[in-house]
C-alpha cells in the first residue's frame, strides 16, 4: 500500500455523472464479458440446444407426421423461434445473480440514468441471443434443414426472431427481479415449458386434443413460430398451418408490441422500486 496521492474529490458535482450511451455501453460490455469468460455457460447452453434438436430430429421426428413438409423443415424453424425463450432464461438468472451479489445496489447508487442498467443488459442479452441463434441455425442446416422460400423472406424471419428475443428479454428480466435469487428465477423459468411445448413449435397443433388446441393455436409462441416457419418454408408450410405468412407476421408483430408494452414498463418500475 502506498500513500501516492489520489485525485482530490470534485466539488463540481454536476461533472460527476455518465450519459445514457456510456452507461448502457459499459453495462452491456460487462454482461458480454461475463458470458464470454464463462465457458461453462457457452458450452452447456450450446450443447443443450444441439442435443434437444438432435433428439427431436432423429428420435421423436419419425413418430410425428407433418403432411406436405419434411419434419426437419417443420421443426427447425420451431427450434429457432423457441430458442429465444430458452436463451432469455439466462437474462432472468443473470439479473437475479446481480441483485443477490449487490451489484445492482452499487449500480443504483451511481449517478447514471436509471434505465441504463436494464437497457444495457437487454442489449447485451440480445447479442447473446444472436449467438445462440447462429448456433441453432448452423446445427439445423447440418441435420438437413433447407430454405424453401426466398432469401429476403428468410432475412425477415431472422429479424423477427431477434425482435422476439428482445420481447422475451423484458419478461425474463422482470422474472429475475421478482425471483430475487438465481435458483428461484430458474423455477420461474419453468413457465417456458407450457409456452413452448403447447405450441406449434415441435408438433402440429392439429395432433393435440381439442381442448388444448384453443390455447395452442392462439398463444404468442405459436404465432411467432408459424411466422418463422412460413417465411422460411413457403407454400407447403402455409398449407399445413392454414394461413399465409403475412397472417402470422402481422399477428406476431402485434403480440410483440403488446408484450413489450406490458413487460418493459413493469420491469423498469420494479427496478426503480428496488
Amino acid at each position: 500500500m502506498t500513500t501516492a496521492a489520489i485525485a482530490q474529490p470534485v466539488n463540481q458535482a454536476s461533472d460527476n455523472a455518465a450519459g445514457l450511451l456510456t452507461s448502457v455501453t459499459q453495462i452491456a460490455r460487462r454482461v458480454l464479458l461475463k458470458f464470454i469468460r464463462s465457458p461453462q455457460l457457452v458450452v452447456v447452453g450450446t450443447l443443450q440446444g444441439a442435443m434437444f434438436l438432435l433428439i427431436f430430429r432423429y428420435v421423436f421426428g419419425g413418430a410425428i407426421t407433418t403432411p406436405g413438409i419434411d419434419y426437419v423443415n417443420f421443426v427447425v424453424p420451431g427450434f429457432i423461434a423457441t430458442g429465444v425463450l430458452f436463451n432469455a432464461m439466462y437474462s432472468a438468472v443473470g439479473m437475479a445473480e446481480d441483485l443477490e451479489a449487490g451489484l445492482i445496489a452499487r449500480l443504483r447508487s451511481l449517478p447514471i440514468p436509471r434505465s441504463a442498467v436494464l437497457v444495457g443488459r437487454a442489449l447485451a442479452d440480445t447479442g447473446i441471443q444472436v449467438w445462440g441463434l447462429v448456433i441453432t441455425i448452423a446445427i439445423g442446416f447440418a441435420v438437413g434443414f433447407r430454405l424453401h422460400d426466398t432469401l429476403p423472406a428468410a432475412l425477415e424471419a431472422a429479424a423477427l426472431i431477434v425482435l422476439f428475443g428482445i420481447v422475451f428479454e423484458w419478461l425474463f428480466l422482470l422474472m429475475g427481479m421478482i425471483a430475487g435469487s438465481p435458483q428461484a428465477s430458474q423455477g420461474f423459468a419453468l413457465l417456458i415449458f407450457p409456452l413452448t411445448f403447447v405450441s406449434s413449435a415441435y408438433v402440429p397443433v392439429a395432433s393435440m386434443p381439442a381442448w388444448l388446441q384453443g390455447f395452442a393455436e392462439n398463444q404468442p409462441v405459436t404465432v411467432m413460430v408459424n411466422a418463422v416457419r412460413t417465411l422460411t418454408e413457403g407454400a407447403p408450410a402455409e398449407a399445413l398451418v392454414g394461413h399465409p405468412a403475412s397472417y402470422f407476421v402481422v399477428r406476431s408483430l402485434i403480440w410483440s408490441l403488446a408484450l413489450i408494452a406490458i413487460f418493459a414498463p413493469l420491469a423498469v418500475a420494479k427496478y426503480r422500486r428496488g
Partner: protein
Amino acid sequence: MLEITPTVEAMGVSKRFGATKALDGLDFTMRPGQVTAVLGPNGAGKTTFVNLLATLLRADAGTLRVCGADVRRDPAAVRRMVALAGQFAAVEPAMTGRENVEMVARLFGQSRRDARRNAAEVLEHIGLTEAADRTVRGYSGGMRRRLDLGASLVGRPRLLLLDEPTTGLDPRSRNELWDVIRSLVHRGTDVLLTTQYLDEADHLASHVVIIDHGRAVASGAPRELKRLVGRTVVEVHVREASDLERVAATLGAISDSDPYIDVPARSVRAGLDADTNRVFAALRPLDDTGIVIDEVAVRAPTLDEAFLTLTGNPQEDVA
C-alpha cells in the same frame, strides 16, 4: 459564527418495512473531515440508514441531507457525491480488477483516459496493482473487499458509505482495509461506516453514533462515550458465583450506577466517576468476608461497556 455544511444531516428520519420500524425518528449530524462510525446491534437500522443515504430507499418521514442536498428532492445530486461499498463485495468476478474499477469510473462520467489513470491510482492505493489484470474470480475475500472499496473511490466521492466493511474478514485483511479507510480522510473523502464491532469504531472513527431500535441513543468521540460509563472501571472476579451479589452490593456503594454482574465470567463490574482512592476504601470490606477473589482490575472503560450501558443489550446480542 461560520456555518459549516454537515456532510450528513438527518432529522427525524423514519422508515418502516411492514410492521417493523427500521428507523424511528433518527437524528444525526456528521461533520466533514472525519470518519464517523454508526454502531449498533443487528437490526438497529444501520443498513437501512446507509441505503437511504445511497438513495436505494426512500424515507417515510423526516429530512435527510448529504452535503446540503436533500436525498428525497435531489437524489441525482446525492448520487454524484456518495459512493457505496456494501457488506458484499459488489464486483464482477468475470472481469479483472482493473476492468471493474475502470467501469465504475466510466459510469461516473470520466473519459476513457481519465478512467484509466484514476483506476491505476486507486489500484495502487488499495495495494492491488500486481493483481490488477487478473480476473476477480481468483481474488481472496480481502482482495475483493479492497477492490469493492477501490471501485467506490474512483468516482472521488465526497462521502463514502461503508456498510460493515470488514464483516467476515480475517484479522490481517481487516487491518489492511482499515489502513486504506484511515488514509481516505486525509484526501478529503468523509467516511461513514456502519459496524457492529466496537473495536472497529474505536480504531477508525473520530466520532461514533450508537443507534438502537432505529434511534440515535448517544454520540461523541469514542473517549467521550467510554466516559459515559465512568472514568474508571473496577472489575472483580470471584471464585464462587454465589458471592457475586455480595460483591455487587459492596461495589454499589462507590458507583453511581448499578454494578453489572456477569455470571458466566463470575465477575462484577462498576464504573467510577471520582478518583481511584475510593476504590481501595470500597474493596476493603471484602477483606473480612471470606469471599475468594481471583482478580481485581482497575482500568479505563471499553467501548463495549459504553455500548452496554447505553443500549442495555448484553454483548452477545451485538456479535
